[in-house]
């Protein structure tokens, strides 16, 4: 999945190193908002999930949602953080999507500090500086001007349904060194958030939002360069492209004798560029001070360990569990498949199928490829049906091609593999029929058969193809190959 821009970027950056730190905002999967009983839901009619508290009406007061704190602690534990006493601060600035014109956030003492995340492929540990709780803002829609953008808009419309939804902001140390690493980090973080039950991890719905701090320095240098913060990274693809672009931009600036100005930049997905939003020289004075309407959070050791016991298996353990199904993960591609399967939360499917007697390698491959490609319908697939399909394929009742087709139909319909196979006419060919087809091919291509019989193996494909054609795809290539070779002997 590595894009062209990234590989060319690596060359461009030779002699340079990029330094990336990420701030990931994650919406917590609670029923209600952080400080009030309004529903935490995506896609509601505008301004229907609002109350005096999340609208910041005069006189209203916040009360912390206990479950939001629990989910935040789960995140902290899953990221190996120290979970400790914390307080809330007010971050003061004016903006129409913020009902109180201050955001309640954690500033000095965050609930989770000093953790790490281990990247699955490189095993590199990325330090997590903090993962703190804060409230989300409302949403503005820009009307008039250029396609809903803020610039040139005539006016804007504000919907406060999202205002007050609980967020955890996860801040990494500047430990990432490439766009690929950044993507791997976010992808693993997303898996952790989903596995711990803290978030649904849907980047496309904005429940996971990433800001990237990017700087560059000469290879071997220990000092950090001036960094820019990139906002609006709504997918892994944007993240990778934006970081690569930004690093190139900075290198170009420096190599042409200019300097990088510390600023916040906006990623423009259509044009594939970052543009300046404002420079840090006009940095806002947020006037943080302790939120007087809330009291400190002091999670007891007992509560924290109880929460810890409720976290399900995390991705690293899930990968271990999958790996243990094989006698040894000799090839990198198997491990890649394991990472993919765990990343998508398909590992239960594979483990369940294997426990039901399915072949591990085949189950893993089908999950990592066919199921992974059709995640929208993944809920239609039961562990049992998946296991049966894998067993049918291993037993030769379905060819590989047939198995893939059947799996596709199963994902769409939720039917059992036998039903789908029958409806497609994918009955396994019995040996007699197959032998008859082989006879037919030999009789129509005697010269080729003679050459094949005398050892020209390159003709295997030709004969398998002919048999498949006659069987209208019902024959299993491997079985045909074996049959051809035993005939020749």
């Amino acid at each position, binding site marked *: 999945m590595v894009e062209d821009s990234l590989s060319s970027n690596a060359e461009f950056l030779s002699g340079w190193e990029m330094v990336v730190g990420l701030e990931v905002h994650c919406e917590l999967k609670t029923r209600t908002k952080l400080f009030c009983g309004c529903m935490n839901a995506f896609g509601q009619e505008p301004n229907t999930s609002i109350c*005096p508290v999340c609208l*910041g009406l*005069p*006189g209203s*007061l916040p*009360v912390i949602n206990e479950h939001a704190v629990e989910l935040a602690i789960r995140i902290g534990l899953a990221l190996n953080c120290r979970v400790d006493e914390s307080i809330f601060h007010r971050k003061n600035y004016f903006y129409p999507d913020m009902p109180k014109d201050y955001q309640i956030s954690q500033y000095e003492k965050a609930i989770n500090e000093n953790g790490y995340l281990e990247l699955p492929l490189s095993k590199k540990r990325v330090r997590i500086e903090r993962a703190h709780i804060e409230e989300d803002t409302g949403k503005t829609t820009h009307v008039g001007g250029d396609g809903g953008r803020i610039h040139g808009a005539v006016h804007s419309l504000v919907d406060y349904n999202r205002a007050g939804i609980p967020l955890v902001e996860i801040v990494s140390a500047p430990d990432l060194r490439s766009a690929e690493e950044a993507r791997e980090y976010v992808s693993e973080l997303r898996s952790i958030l989903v596995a711990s039950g803290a978030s649904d991890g849907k980047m496309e719905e904005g429940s996971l939002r990433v800001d990237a701090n990017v700087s560059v320095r000469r290879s071997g240098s220990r000092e950090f360069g001036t960094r820019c913060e990139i906002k609006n990274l709504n997918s892994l693809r944007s993240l990778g492209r934006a970081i690569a672009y930004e690093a190139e931009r900075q290198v170009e600036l420096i190599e042409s004798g200019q300097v990088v100005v510390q600023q916040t930049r906006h990623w423009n997905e259509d044009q594939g560029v970052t543009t300046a939003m404002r420079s840090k020289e006009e940095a806002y004075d947020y006037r*943080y*001070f302790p939120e007087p309407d809330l*009291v400190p959070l002091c999670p007891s050791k007992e509560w924290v360990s109880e929460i810890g016991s409720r976290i399900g298996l995390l991705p690293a353990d899930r990968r271990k569990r999958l790996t243990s199904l094989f006698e040894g993960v000799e090839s990198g591609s198997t491990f890649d498949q394991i990472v993919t399967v765990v990343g998508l939360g398909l590992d239960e499917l594979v483990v369940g199928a294997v426990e039901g007697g399915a072949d591990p390698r085949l189950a893993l491959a089908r999950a990592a490829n066919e199921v992974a490609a059709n995640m929208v319908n993944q809920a239609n697939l039961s562990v049992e049906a998946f296991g049966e399909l894998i067993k049918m394929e291993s037993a030769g009742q379905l060819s590989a091609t047939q198995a893939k087709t059947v799996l596709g139909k199963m994902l769409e319909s939720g039917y059992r593999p036998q039903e789908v196979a029958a409806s497609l006419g994918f009955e396994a060919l019995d040996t007699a029929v197959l032998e008859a087809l082989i006879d037919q091919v030999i009789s129509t291509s005697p010269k080729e058969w003679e050459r094949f019989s005398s050892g020209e193996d390159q003709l295997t494909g030709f004969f398998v193809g002919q048999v498949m054609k006659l069987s209208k795809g019902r024959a299993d290539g491997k079985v045909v190959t074996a049959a051809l070779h035993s005939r020749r002997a």
Partner: protein
Amino acid sequence: MTASTIGMSAFEIATLVRSKQVSAAEVTHEHLALVKARDGDLNSFLQISEEAALASAKAVDEMIAKGEDPGALAGVPIALKDNLVTRGISTTCASQILKAWKPPYDATVILKARAAGAVALGKTNLDEFAMGSSTENSSFGPTRNPYDLGRVPGGSSGGSAAAVAAKFAPIALGSDTGGSIRQPAALCGIVGVKPTYGLVSRYGLIAFASSLDQIGPFARNVKDAALLLQVIAGHDRMDSTSLGGPVPDLLSDIENGVEGLRIGVIEELIDGVSPMVGTALDSAANSLSAQGAQVEHLSVPAVKYGLSAYYLIAPAEASSNLARYDGVRYGLRVEGQDMNETYVASRTKGFGPEVKRRIMLGTFALSSGYYDAYYGRAQRVRTMIIDSFRKAYESFDVLLSPTSPTTAFELGAKAADPLSMYLSDVCTIPTNLAGHPAISVPYGEGENEMPIGVQILAPALGEANMFKVARALERGAPLIAKKLFWE
């Protein structure tokens, strides 16, 4: 109807209403008529909610007709400071920025008072956003003192204090951030209470300084004040800073006297008070001593730093609390070319000079480079004051001081000099910083025959002792001979 209920206590009215000797409707009509006839001179009400009042009274009478008990405040008229949120009834904070705002919800105290049978007559005047000590900062004109229309009623809850003193209602609710209940109570010759922080829910109180604000009662006697506080106190799940646990019983022991109680007179708060206020305090101390209390002078050194700490902390919190008045969701909008211009135009037009002054002071105290020197330091001084009180309460049950250094001053006397106005809060502020309760009890007349208030301070949740001492003080207090403006 037999006799007029005007001038009766809340206890008396509730008793008459519950025993069907008078209807809540009659009581309401009578008080509304007085307000309508006389408030033109006083300007204590910003809005009279006649319809809602009559509807509440009717509901009380219907309950009584059905043999149900409407509660401890059955049919008792109550005035509400206009920074308490009332559903469908405009709530202005005496500010142009909220001039037309009709809230979609009720403050917790409003619900509690209503549930106890109280009948809200309307919303009373205040210094804009409760910032002031004279009610001259109202953008709807000042309230006047009912004993002398040329003088201020104190503030910021001047409307509620004046309305109760003028007998427009036997009880009222106010809010006290640095003395905004006790100082106007003293200046108007009535009782005013600032409860322990967290005893009364702040949900629906429009915030001035969140860590200092408390809602509390006004009444013309100590028992009524205790009764109203008993009704509005108690845990509220809508306020994270609301105390749990049972509400202390404020009434059972109120008549039990002060025999054996240790009462300390705070020396630091006597310095600089007017001669007659000083004399009144001595007399109050003697009266309590004569009733069997052990009264001694003591030093609570840190209280003298209260004013400085307060005028950094309160504006800092206010600068943030008042950010939401931005012309987007409710209240005044003055349209500019863009969002930022609209913010500036709306806020510049919507806020009065004192509010702007405190927003700027608070913004400065929190701003980068000054936080530690001002806000941070003020918070440490706050700890110092709490510590100083803690030591005092090791040796004393309650403390005594004047409520205000002077009696009511003339309108306009301090308007040009904010600092001199701030100094009128010097005796009341330390209590707010500590989160403790305090009460102001009228104690005769002072300069210009205007009322004097004596303040009783108690440790957190020490309300029961505080009321006991207040009741004893009230028993021995000289009366106010001066007539109300309409009498």
